[in-house]
């Protein structure tokens, strides 16, 4: 782990994992994401911030084509995952989502499943075979630092956990399908401060192996965990830069106004 960590040089320019170009998204005739062009760097945390309703969630959901599940929703533009355009007609969106996983605002473990089955749910739902399910469960639960808390009650329902634990279980569930990118939509906004701290730690650890995109309302959180930051306003990308640069030296006045609480 520490060997890996030392590999990441904060100043080195990372390769892009996802390249978004001219992405537009609509709900029926409502244009909510407008012409976004952005490269998400590999093995970094990219935070997306902006006032409520500015299109952060919609943008995020375009990245793994979850957006199109909403009736009347439409997207246009290109999203390249390692150079493959995920919007190409030949792409199977279900397969794509196994590479680009997602964690939601509200913890949503499957209520009919035990903790163990929740972790394995991705494989079950994809119909893929797991060689050593026990090991996989343990590994994923350890990754989200939940193993010690639940190892004695893996057969209990996933919803019997506290909401902080549930959210970590949901992250373990995503990790189990071994995605390369993880999208997080306000993963801690429904949690108490202690659970939030847990999630943040986890994000820090995960970025050693995964590319993370995090939508958050909490500027402090964005400052704490992200390497890069994108500021959205009314569907537009106003500014995208390294987090420290954005906080210390934003180029756009609207970014500064937002960060200092003049609006939002």
């Amino acid at each position: 782990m520490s060997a890996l960590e030392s590999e990441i040089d904060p100043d080195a320019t990372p390769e892009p994992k996802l390249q978004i170009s001219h992405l537009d998204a609509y709900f029926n005739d409502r244009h909510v994401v407008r012409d976004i062009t952005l490269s998400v760097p590999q093995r970094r945390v990219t935070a997306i911030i902006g006032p409520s309703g500015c299109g952060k969630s919609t943008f995020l959901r375009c990245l793994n084509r979850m957006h199109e599940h909403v009736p009347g929703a439409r997207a246009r533009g290109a999203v390249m995952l390692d150079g493959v355009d995920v919007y190409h007609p030949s792409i199977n969106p279900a397969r794509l989502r196994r590479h680009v996983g997602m964690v939601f605002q509200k913890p949503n473990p499957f209520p009919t499943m035990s903790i163990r089955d929740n972790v394995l749910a991705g494989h079950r739902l994809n119909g893929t075979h797991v060689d050593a399910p026990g090991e996989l469960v343990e590994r994923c639960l350890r990754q989200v630092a939940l193993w010690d808390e639940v190892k004695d009650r893996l057969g209990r329902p996933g919803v019997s956990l506290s909401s902080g634990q549930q959210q970590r279980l949901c992250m373990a569930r995503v990790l189990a399908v071994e995605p390369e990118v993880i999208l997080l939509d306000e993963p801690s906004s429904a949690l108490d401060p202690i659970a939030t701290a847990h999630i943040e730690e986890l994000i820090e650890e995960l970025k050693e192996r995964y590319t993370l995109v995090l939508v958050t309302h909490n500027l402090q959180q964005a400052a704490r965990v992200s390497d890069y930051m994108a500021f959205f306003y009314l569907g537009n990308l106003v500014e995208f830069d390294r987090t420290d640069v954005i906080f210390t030296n934003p180029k756009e006045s609207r970014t500064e106004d937002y960060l200092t609480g003049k609006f939002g």
Partner: protein
Amino acid sequence: MKRDLAAELRRPSALSERAGKLVFSLCAAASLVTTGGIVAVLLHQTIGFLQAVPFTRLLTDTHWTPLFAEPRFGLWPLLCGTLLTTGIAMMVAIPCGVLAAIYLSELAGERQRRIVKPLVELLAGIPTLIYGYFALSLVTPALQQIIPGLSGFNALSAGSVMGLMLLPVVASLSEDALSAVPTGLREASHALGVRRTATIFRVVIPSASPGIAAAVLLAASRALGATMIVAIAAGQQPQLTLDPRDSVETMTTYIAQVSLGDIPTGTLEYRTIFAVGLCLFMMTLVLNVIAHRLRRRIHRQERP
């Protein structure tokens, strides 16, 4: 490596995915086939019927005696019977049903509602046959005490018991419509210092009116199609009358009566029941479609 990813992302879904969709869509098609079947069967026989009996005779004749030696095919007596029993039923069901719904949704306490609502829904599910027994063995004798000379089979008894049967239907559907009115509207009204009755009658009911109208239409459609009550208690004599004390024959009674007699296929008598059936189907279709539209309007209102 990148080519691998592209290939991986392009792999199609499992077979079960596509097969499932096909099977499920066939199931959904079954409902269309049912309607298609109903329309085809009714139309087919009705066309055969209309070839023998011109349509104008249905509308101009005032007698319905298709089985007699000199058959006459005026639809009006059956329509009259049907509309009479339906009208009486609605006169009982609408005021009581809507009032009960208002009470349940706006005035009753939480606990009262929790007990009474399922009970009302249970009542709505009681077989019509049982109400028929009720009409024949209890209500008619009671009414004969009040109205001397009332015939043993009569529209009044059948209609009012049908109203009683539909009352829970109207109440339950109207209650759904009333409780779908957002609490925000009631609160807004209260916050303007409006008293309760004014809030109910001028804010809540107008907002729920499409749903209440749908409830009324659905109940009317049920009344048109109700068979057992009228077959048991309203009689079997097609008469052009609007006197509720008379014995009448409804469209459903006629169909039931003839099919009990089991008339052989292909005869004109056999075809009459399909012609009457088509007429009934069209009447209920109109009511059902309007009710469906109205109810969709509520759902759309709820969403934003």
